[in-house]
């Protein structure tokens, strides 16, 4: 107990300036085991510390305290204390002990999920994510947990805010897979199918040495989302996909590929029969809702194809071509598509005719100038980053070793720029 008192006073004393903090950090690292052994009695000590100023010390004690199993009456209290801590702690101090912070937050998330009140955890987790990451381009281990809570709580908009930022630095590959997968699901929930497709594609094409389950699930959803968004799906993956993925993913997702093939025929009846045959598989993957959206998107796709051929068309003809039952249904579909901005048309209700127009965007407004200008700026910064990464990989020993091996060996006349073997 005396050592605990001494520790508390030290924490209180040394939480001032930067050098003190690093000194304190070293001290705390040494006392880790003793803290673990005293776990149940630490609650009282927590009250003596101020989380806003002495965040580092508070964090260590909190982490040791939470490593012990929590009894049933306490979870609510536990959640309250952790959320107040997250809201009031200092970002710089926490980043020194990032892994402890991550484990505290993960336990917090588990408790919240156990209690089945994910909404309580969304706001604290968001603050936690913002405090832990060193820049908006940094992906931490907390990002996927935060997105998971958003999904469970169905608060998609909060998740979208975090998803808008581009990621350039990743701590752990597993975080990236989960982050993109959950992010894709959130975007599907918000019906942003374009961004969802991008995120799911990231999961599928990310470098992996062996196939993993997240990628398989993501591939299934990717197939469905690209049908909804793009109207087509090709099994050919981009060339930066790992060869493992390119070979094995297709084998796990056969029903989806069949669905894509029947979609491309353009006939509703074929599509629906395909859905019927594979219904159990879709249901077991929790993808049935998405599949239904695929079916309704086929109508949209067919109507869009009509705009390429016709200038005006009667509602009856639309219903016949698209295999809808009544012209009223056709009118509903067309109206919804006009509202969503997917086609440009006007409906003449007297004649029951629909006339299709061109895209009225003239590209001569100031907003368009700003839009293009901001895109150019983004691309300039992206280009700089790309060149930097390219340079980095050019002198990576793994690359140089392999590149050296692939040269022809018997050209003595050639000037040798890369030695054949690298002894490092």
């Amino acid at each position: 107990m005396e050592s605990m008192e001494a520790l508390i006073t030290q924490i209180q004393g040394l939480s001032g300036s930067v050098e003190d903090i690093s000194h304190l950090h070293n001290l705390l690292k040494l006392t880790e085991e003793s803290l673990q052994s005293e776990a149940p009695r630490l609650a009282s000590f927590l009250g003596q510390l101020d989380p806003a100023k002495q965040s580092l010390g508070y964090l260590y004690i909190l982490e040791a305290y939470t490593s012990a199993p929590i009894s049933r009456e306490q979870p609510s209290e536990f959640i309250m204390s952790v959320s107040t801590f997250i809201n009031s702690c200092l970002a710089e101090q926490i980043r020194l002990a990032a892994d402890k912070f991550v484990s505290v937050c993960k336990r917090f998330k588990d408790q919240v999920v156990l209690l089945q009140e994910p909404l309580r955890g969304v706001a604290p987790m968001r603050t936690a994510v913002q405090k832990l990451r060193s820049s908006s381009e940094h992906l931490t281990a907390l990002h996927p947990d935060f997105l998971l809570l958003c999904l469970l709580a169905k608060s998609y908009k909060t998740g979208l805010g975090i998803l808008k930022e581009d990621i350039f630095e990743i701590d752990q590959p597993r975080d990236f897979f989960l982050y993109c997968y959950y992010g894709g699901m959130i975007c599907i929930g918000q019906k942003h199918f374009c961004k969802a497709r991008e995120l799911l594609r990231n999961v599928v094409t990310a470098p992996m040495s062996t196939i993993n389950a997240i990628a398989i699930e993501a591939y299934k959803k990717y197939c469905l989302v690209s049908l909804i968004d793009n109207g087509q799906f090709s099994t050919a993956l981009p060339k930066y996909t790992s060869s493992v993925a390119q070979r094995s993913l297709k084998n796990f997702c056969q029903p989806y590929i069949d669905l894509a093939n029947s979609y491309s025929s353009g006939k509703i009846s074929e599509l629906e029969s395909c859905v019927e045959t594979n219904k159990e598989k879709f249901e077991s993957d929790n993808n049935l809702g998405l599949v239904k959206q695929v079916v309704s998107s086929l109508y949209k796709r067919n109507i869009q194809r009509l705009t390429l051929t016709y200038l005006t068309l009667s509602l009856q003809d639309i219903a016949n071509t698209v295999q809808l039952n009544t012209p009223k249904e056709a009118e509903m579909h067309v109206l919804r598509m006009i509202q969503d901005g997917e086609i440009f048309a006007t409906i003449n209700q007297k004649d029951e005719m629909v006339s299709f127009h061109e895209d009225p965007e003239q590209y001569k407004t100031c907003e368009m100038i700003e839009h293009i200008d901001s895109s150019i700026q983004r691309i300039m910064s992206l280009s700089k980053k790309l060149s930097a990464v390219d340079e980095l990989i050019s002198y990576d020993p793994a690359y140089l070793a392999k590149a050296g091996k692939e040269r022809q060996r018997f050209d003595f006349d050639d000037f040798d720029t890369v030695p054949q073997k690298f002894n490092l």
Partner: protein
Amino acid sequence: MASSSSSGLTFKLHPLVIVNISDHYTRVKSQAQPPHGSSNGGSSPPPQPPRVFGCVIGIQRGRTVEIFNSFELLYDPSTESLDRSFLEKKQELYKKVFPNFYILGWYSTGSDVQESDMHIHKALMDINESPVYVILNPAINHSQKDLPVTIYESELHVIDGIPQLIFVRSSYTIETVEAERISVDHVAHLKPSDGGSAATQLAAHLTGIHSAIKMLNSRIRVLHNYLLSMQRGDIPMEDSLLRQVSSLLRRLPAIESGKFQDDFQMEYNDTLLITYLAMLTNCSSTMNELVDKFNTAYDRHSRRGGRTAFI
């Protein structure tokens, strides 16, 4: 030498004269210069740049003296005077082509007026009572903003009780004819010697535009700061300057109509789109290389290359 002339004559100099003098000097210098030898001790001083001489011709109307053209003359270093017969022969020839032009004076190169120049000047005084003396300073000084050309006149001043003829500086302005403007433009842009591919020409063109815009920007900034400090009260109000600024501002925009705005913005957007496309292509190409390198380095089952040569 007195500082400024009091004769009240205004001088107008054409760029052709400046180009002629500089051309003459460069030719003589490059013919006289021995080829660079690496075995040169390095301690010998560089040879004195040669002085070239010639005549300037033009028209004098009332108080305005306009110098149009020039031609070269032979200088005799032994007598320190110009070759008279040569001068007269050249003068006859030029009179046939340009009947209006008279000999107005002479030119030379160097950094300053020298004593011997007065002899030449006096020798010319029988052709023109008050000849002008144009000096071009061939030394390249990058910090200097003005032209290194000075015009001197001769005046009779009383110094120490003796009336003497001395040189006094005059100010001058540059006057251009359309043909001269084109040639000066061409010289100013100094295209690369090999003609340049399309890329270098485009780069040179864009660099020119960039520097022009930069200069415009800095000048506007100066005016802006000036107006701000006038508003704050640091500088007394000057109405004439304010009038000039406001007239300058009223000159733009030149056209103000809906149709112009539309067309202008469409063209602007097109240019932006092309830039965007160029950047996208650039990025895609970098990305492609990066992906290739990554696949070579880290993909375990990537294609095993390395064909062995047929022996």
